Each structure stands twice: as C-alpha cells, then as structure tokens.
C-alpha cells in the first residue's frame, strides 16, 4: 500500500448515499410508469412512490454533510461549482430534481386535496395546508386539467432528471481513472439499473406493508404488475453486472490479479454470497417462479416480500462492494487494507442505521400530511371529482 492509502477515504455513509438516491430514482421511475406510460395496473402505488422518493431525497444530503471535513463550507458547491467535476453537479442536479420535478409533481397531483384540507382542517395543520396552496384555492375542472397536463410534462422531464440524479453518482465513480475497480463506462448504467431495482422493490414492499397496516386488501393486479417490472429490470441489471465481470476476467489487465484476489478473500461474503447469490440470483429465481407458474395469491405475496427484502439487501451490498471494495486494494496492485468501521462515530454504523430509518419516519409524516389513498368515506366524492 502507498502509505497514505491505508486509511479509507469514503466510509459507510458514502455507501448509503447512492443507496438512498437510487431509491429516489427507482421509485420515481415506477411512478412515471403510470403517469407517462399509462400502465393502469400500478396506479395504487403512484402517490406512495412519489412520497417515498421525496422522503429519501430529503435525507440524501445528510450522509454527505456528515462525511465532509468542512460541512459548513458545502455551500461553496453552489457558489463556485467546478465545471469539470461530476461532484459539483450534485448541488444543482439535486436542487433541480427536488424542486422542479419531485416537489412540483407532488404538489400538482395533490393540489386538489391540499385545497380541500386547507378548508376542512383546523389548527397548525390548516396553516400548513394554506401555505401549500400558495394562496390559490381554484380547483375547478379546468385548473385541474391544467394540473394534469403540467404534471405529465413534469414527469416526462423528470425521467431523464431521475436518470441524471443517480447516473451522475455512477459517473463520479466511473470516471476515476486512478481506480480500476470503479473506472468503467458501464458504471453509471449499472448504478441506474440497480437503483431502479431497489426503488421498485421498496415501493412494492411499502405498498404491501401499508395495506396490511391499514387493513386494506392488497390490489394483487397492481402488485403483480410491479413485480413483473421488478423482474424485467432485474434481468437487465444482472446482465450488465455479469457483462462487467466477464469482461474483466477475460481481458485480465494489470489490475485483475489484485482485484480477483480481493473478491475471493476480503469481498467474498459481501459480493459473492450477499450481492450475487442472495441479493440477485435468488430474487430473480423467485420472481421467475411467479412469472412462469400459476401460484396462489398467498404464495405470491410471500415470494414478493421475500424477494423484495433480499433485493434491498443485495442492492445495498452492491453499493458497499463498489465504494468500500474500491478502497480495499492498493493502486499499486500490491497490497490490501481493511475498513475499520466505527459504531458510535460521525461516520459510524450507528449513524448509517439512523440515516436509513430517518426516511421512513419522514415518509410516515408525509403520509399523514398528504395521504396517498383517500379516506373510505370520501372515496365516492373523489371518484366523481378527480380527473382521470
């Protein structure tokens, strides 16, 4: 090892960041399936997917801030972004996606409900809803039609924006020529597809969980459709990762011997066992079963839950293997180091756990504020009033 390489630079928080933004991008793509591609079946998950994306997007900058040596200087990325740096783009891509895409789309979709609730609720909630209406209480059919059109346009812009939001993270790694584990033109694409897989999986899991909490029947047509898209995306993701692997093994360049040894020893558990076997092959196999065989509803639900959970673990492991794995070997290809992860530390495991739980807390708050599913009593009224 070069003497300065012994200590790892990017910790578990930097593993968490692409995981979180991946969920954002993936959840949004699922939402856009309904909005732009008119896949009716997934409509029940539409609002939930948007709120999930927002909850994770709000938490996403936190691991980065905690990792910086000088978080109080992070505003410099907005003042003097360095044009040649992919990381400089973060501030603007994030802001664009948050404000011009996600918040806007949620606001447009919920505006009718926001106006209604600004008039029907009391206390501090009323103030919040009133603020959200921006002072306009127009929910005529024409205005809602305009909203519909605008929302469609935003989603169309939002899809490449979501690609950019997570693709640039892949580029941050893929463009580092100094690190052969990262340097690859495939990196942004692999990141993106694994993000889509994790995003679709988490919305599927959350939808099933929330139906169970609300004691509502799970719309199996919806979940079957979501699982189908998960399966297809997973196939593409797996193919890309295998392509990268096979290419590396075949070309066997200068770095190969060192990386190969690392995968067989230090990264064996996290890459071969967790990411590839448990996190990719098993879920694909399980989902394939549901596509090929005619299984009962109960069995399908169990498989979806199991496949979804394994997928989440597998995608997290993928981020871990890329970020941490890329720092375990020396750029001289002659040595290895270890990652000493603290527990109660600024960049420790506990912090990572808290930051993973935090989006769910925020999501819970968002769901209370902006319910994705109408109350049972007002279902009839909503059905009449909402444009389809």
């Amino acid at each position: 090892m070069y003497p300065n390489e012994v200590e790892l630079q990017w910790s578990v928080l930097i593993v968490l960041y692409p995981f979180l933004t991946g969920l954002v991008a993936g959840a949004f793509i699922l939402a856009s399936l309904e909005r732009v591609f008119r896949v009716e079946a997934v409509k029940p998950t539409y609002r939930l997917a948007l709120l999930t994306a927002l909850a994770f997007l709000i938490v996403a900058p936190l691991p980065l801030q905690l990792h910086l040596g000088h978080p109080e200087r992070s505003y410099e990325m907005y003042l003097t972004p360095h044009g040649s740096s992919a990381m400089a783009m973060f501030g603007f891509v994030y802001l664009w996606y948050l404000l011009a895409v996600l918040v806007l789309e949620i606001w447009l979709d919920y505006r009718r409900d926001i106006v209604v609730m600004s008039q029907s609720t009391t206390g501090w909630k009323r103030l919040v809803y009133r603020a959200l209406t921006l002072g306009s209480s127009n929910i005529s059919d024409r205005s809602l039609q305009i909203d519909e059109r605008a929302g469609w346009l935003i989603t169309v812009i939002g899809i490449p924006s979501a690609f950019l939001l997570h693709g640039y993270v892949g580029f941050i790694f893929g463009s580092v020529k100094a690190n052969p584990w990262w340097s690859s033109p495939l990196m942004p694409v692999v990141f993106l597809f694994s993000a889509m897989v994790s995003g679709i999986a988490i919305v599927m899991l959350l939808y099933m969980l929330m139906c169970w909490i609300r004691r509502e029947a799970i719309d199996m047509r919806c979940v079957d459709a979501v699982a189908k898209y998960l399966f297809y995306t997973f196939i593409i993701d797996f193919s890309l990762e295998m392509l990268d692997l096979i290419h590396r093994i075949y070309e066997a360049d200068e770095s190969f011997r060192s990386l190969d040894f690392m995968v067989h020893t230090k990264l064996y558990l996290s890459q071969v066992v967790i990411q590839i076997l448990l996190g990719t092959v098993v879920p694909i196999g399980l989902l394939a079963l549901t596509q090929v065989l005619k299984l009962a509803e109960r069995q399908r639900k169990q498989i979806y839950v199991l496949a979804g959970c394994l997928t989440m673990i597998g995608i997290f492991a993928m981020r871990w293997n890329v970020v941490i794995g890329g720092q375990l070997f020396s750029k001289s290809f002659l040595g290895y180091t270890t990652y000493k992860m603290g527990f109660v530390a600024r960049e420790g495991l506990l912090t990572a756990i808290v930051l993973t739980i935090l989006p769910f807390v925020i999501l819970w708050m968002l769901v209370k504020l902006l319910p994705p599913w109408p109350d049972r009593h007002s279902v009839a009224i909503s059905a009449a009033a909402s444009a389809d």
Partner: protein
Amino acid sequence: MNITRRQLLILLPAAAIAWEHILAGTPEASPNYNMTGHWWGMLMDITKCIGCGSCARACQLENHVPDGYYRTWVERYHVTDWALEYPKVDSPEGGKNGFPAAVEAGGKNFFVPKMCNQCADSPCTQVCPVGATFVSPDGVVLVDQKYCLGCRYCVQACPYGCRFINPQTKTANKCTLCYHRITKGLTTACSEVCPTGTRQLADLKNPNDPIHEFLKTHSVQVLKPHLATRSKCFYYGLDGSVR
C-alpha cells in the same frame, strides 16, 4: 566554531541581509518572483537513492506533516529474477527512519522516493467540486486550505496515492513542492537535505537549469504513463517493476 569576532561582525550583517532578502520574496510583495516565468518539476535519480529517509523527515519538519501521513515517502523494492509484475515493496513509516536489513537476499533491490507528481494534466484538480485544488500558473498543484471541503474526491482521484486528509485541518493536503520556499529562491526541503543528489528541483522553463538539461539528454520515465497525467516528477533509472 573557529570564527573570530572580527569575522563575525562582518559576516553576520551580510548573512542577515541575505536572509531578509530571501524572506522578502513573496510572490506579490516582491518583483523577484514572476509566476509565469517558471514551470516547476522534479528529477529523481534512482541510481543514487540510499533510502536514508532524510527527505521524508525534512518534509515533515518543514511542512508540519502529521504522523502517519506522508507528503513524500521512500519505498524499497525487491525484484526476483524476471518477475517485474510482482515486486516485494516495503515502506516502514514512509522510510522516515531508514529501512531495516533486508530479509531476502539476492534479486534486484533499490529505493524509490515518491511524492506528488505535480501533474500538468492533473486528475485530482479535475475532480475538485469547488476549485479548492488547482494547478498554479507555474506548474505546482496546490490546495487552498481555506476553501477545501474535505470531500476526499481528490484523494480518490490521485493515481499515485500522494494525497491525504490532514486530521487537524480536515482538508486535503499534499506536497506543495515547498511553494513557500521555491518562490523565495530556495529549493524544496527534500532536495536541500538529500545527501546524494537523488532529488533535485527542476525549472522546466529555465533553459539554463542543469536538471532541465539532464531531462533533455537522458532517458527518463514517469510513473503510470498510461494514465496520461503529464506527470512532472521524472525518474532516471526507474525499473519496470515500480508501481
């Protein structure tokens, strides 16, 4: 010391004036230093390196480098037979306190000092998100300690492992080619103390610079040429096994 008082009375003021003159050479205060008139580089003559570690020690003292981190270090290579791809390399504490006796006899053995390569096409400055690290007009890659966020992207991007994060300032840190010295007409601390002349500062814009002349007339190499960093740290006598 056998100086007479009379000699001292004459020498001391002369030396004091010389020293003041050197100290006054800040780039903007003194007309002596013009940034665009220089293009700094370094020559490492591997055939002369004895692995004494004076350079690493001097650098630490001159630049207040914290223990465990290195702006420059020395590696010892042991190459068996023709196996250029698999050398055995060690660098105990960066070579600061020399090297213990070798365990394996035979083979090719030599020392290689390493430092920031002061790349003209620097990958580390390319990735800085805010412009805290940059290539100066005189060819030195510097870090602005007041502007750096400590994001560590530059540390990842450096192919030579010469950057680190200073645990006290929490900003990126690396060899500055003793910028505070070379702008005053002094040489780098490592070149100053190197007893064998392995390390020598080069001004690649100065036609009279003897090192510049050496580079034009001898076979020299740079580390990792395939990464096209246009490194300005040139090695003479570098073995193919050096990573």
